[in-house]
């Protein structure tokens, strides 16, 4: 598997506080990796370390095969673009001037692509308006344009939809999908807006108290979040036979629990089972959202 970013037991301590605790993430090429965690879980700390703003206390990370302990990490970073918390914008300059500045910083041979970038993020008509007078959504889009100036292969977006109105959220979402599909940019996006992330992410990493507690693809997650009926039974074997004969998708979870997947009419299922003298001790119907899944994963009680 080719990973764009891989971390190995990354740790970060601030005095007595451990912000990252043996964090291991693996971001595949071409993925939109949703980094999910509540406030203070360590998302921004992880991103700051990957972007070189802070040094890990222990552990290491690899970007495009280059370890942070080697000098080559600088060349790997040249393939990256990032927005960390707030976009890096000079407020006194226009959108175009900010992009010219970034083009010079990354050493682009000409300024030809600036109009296309402004068009891509929908800021082609901002003229002489200074960036400090932009709306939050416009600033965020300008930040993305700046992060795209060096034609990155890997884009890091830390909380890109924070504070945006619904229209702004939709625009950023569409832009991210476009960048991933049309430009094949691998994207790491951190957020605590889980519903939004579920609309774009192809992979997820759940971060809690500085540790990745699960990495999962969206397909695997969808399967886990599928509508299901949970049966508590005494003898799963007979139930399994029935489900096999009737082509019903199921999974034996343990010696007493079977999950039945798919949209089934509960009363029809129960009556079918009764006809075969299969009586379940308990039956629960469940449909999970990403939010529920995350809460169950981290143990809902300690969530804020």
């Amino acid at each position: 598997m080719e990973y764009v970013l891989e971390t190995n037991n990354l740790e970060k301590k601030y005095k007595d506080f451990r912000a990252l605790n043996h964090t291991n993430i693996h971001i595949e090429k071409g993925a939109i990796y949703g980094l999910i965690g509540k406030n203070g879980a360590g998302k921004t700390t992880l991103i700051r370390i990957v972007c070189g703003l802070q040094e890990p206390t222990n552990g290491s990370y690899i970007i495009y095969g280059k370890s942070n302990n080697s000098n080559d990490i600088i060349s790997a970073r040249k393939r990256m673009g990032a927005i960390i918390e707030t976009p890096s914008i000079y407020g006194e300059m226009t959108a175009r001037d900010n992009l010219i500045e970034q083009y010079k910083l990354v050493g682009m041979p000409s300024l030809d692509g600036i109009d296309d970038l402004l068009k891509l993020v929908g800021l082609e008509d901002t003229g002489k308006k200074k960036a400090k007078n932009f709306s939050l959504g416009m600033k965020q889009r300008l930040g993305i344009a700046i992060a795209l100036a060096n034609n990155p292969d890997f884009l890091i977006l830390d909380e890109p939809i924070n504070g945006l109105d619904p229209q702004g959220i939709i625009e950023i979402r569409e832009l991210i999908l476009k960048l991933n599909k049309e430009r094949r940019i691998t994207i790491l996006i951190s957020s605590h807006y889980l519903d939004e992330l579920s609309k774009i992410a192809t992979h997820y990493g759940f971060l809690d108290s500085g540790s990745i507690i699960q990495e999962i693809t969206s397909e695997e997650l969808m399967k886990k979040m599928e509508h299901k009926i949970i049966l508590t039974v005494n003898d799963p074997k007979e139930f399994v036979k029935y489900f096999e004969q009737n082509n019903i998708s199921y999974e034996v979870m343990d010696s007493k629990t079977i999950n039945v997947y798919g949209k089934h009419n509960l009363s029809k299922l129960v009556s079918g089972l009764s006809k075969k003298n299969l009586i379940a001790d308990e039956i629960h119907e469940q449909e999970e959202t990403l939010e529920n899944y995350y809460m169950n994963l981290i143990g809902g009680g300690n969530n804020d």
Partner: protein
Amino acid sequence: MIKLLNAAFTRLRKSKIFWILSIFSIGFALVIINAQYGDMRDLGETIEIGQLVLSYPTIIGIVIAIFISLFLGVEYSDGGVRNKISIGHRRKNIYLSNLIVSSIVSLFFYAIFLAIMITIGIPLFGAGTIPISLILMKLFVMALVIIAYSSIFTFVALICSNKTIISITTILLAFGMTFFSTYCYSMLTAPETIPEASMENGETKIEEVPNPKYPSPEKRKMYQTLLDIIPSGQTLQMQGRDSNLEILLVYSLGILVVFTGSGLVLFNKKELK
């Protein structure tokens, strides 16, 4: 490094504070010429152009502090430093490029002042009596003093992350250095004796008595050393005819090396947000 410098000069062209301080430098030169011309015309004073060209550095520390606090001060608040690091620029290069830009701009402010002084001042006041070699030597040392100033304020701007703290610190530092060096200079130029009037047999008698504020040899040495070290003290001394330029040159280089060296070490270790 070249990319960083290229980007910084691009931003400089759009910087309001750069243009305002450039205009101020022109205005300051014109005000000095006008005031000196008035003295020459009304009081018949002889004006030395060689002394006049060294008059701007008295306040150039404050001008540099204002420029750096506003130009580099936004590097953290607007995310410039963060952006440069995340796209693969080395911290060492970021620090040095900022120092180079600050130094070049500070020298530029002085160069504008000089250009006005020379083009208008020489026709008005004449070439003066100070040997050209001495003026050139002083200008060279002055350039180093300006770079030393820039290194101090660049250090503050890149080690502190807060824009307000940067502005307050650099400007207070500039004023503090100016006032402190003026105090040291006044102590060193204090007369050893002062006239004291006394009555003897009904007659007023004036005699020279030791000045109680005249510093002891140890204190004189201390004031002189401080004046040599502080950039504003160096500029004050250079306006006199008998300043020790070699020592001032060494101290300016020392300030540049100490502040840039420690700035690079601290900036390299700095945890950024």
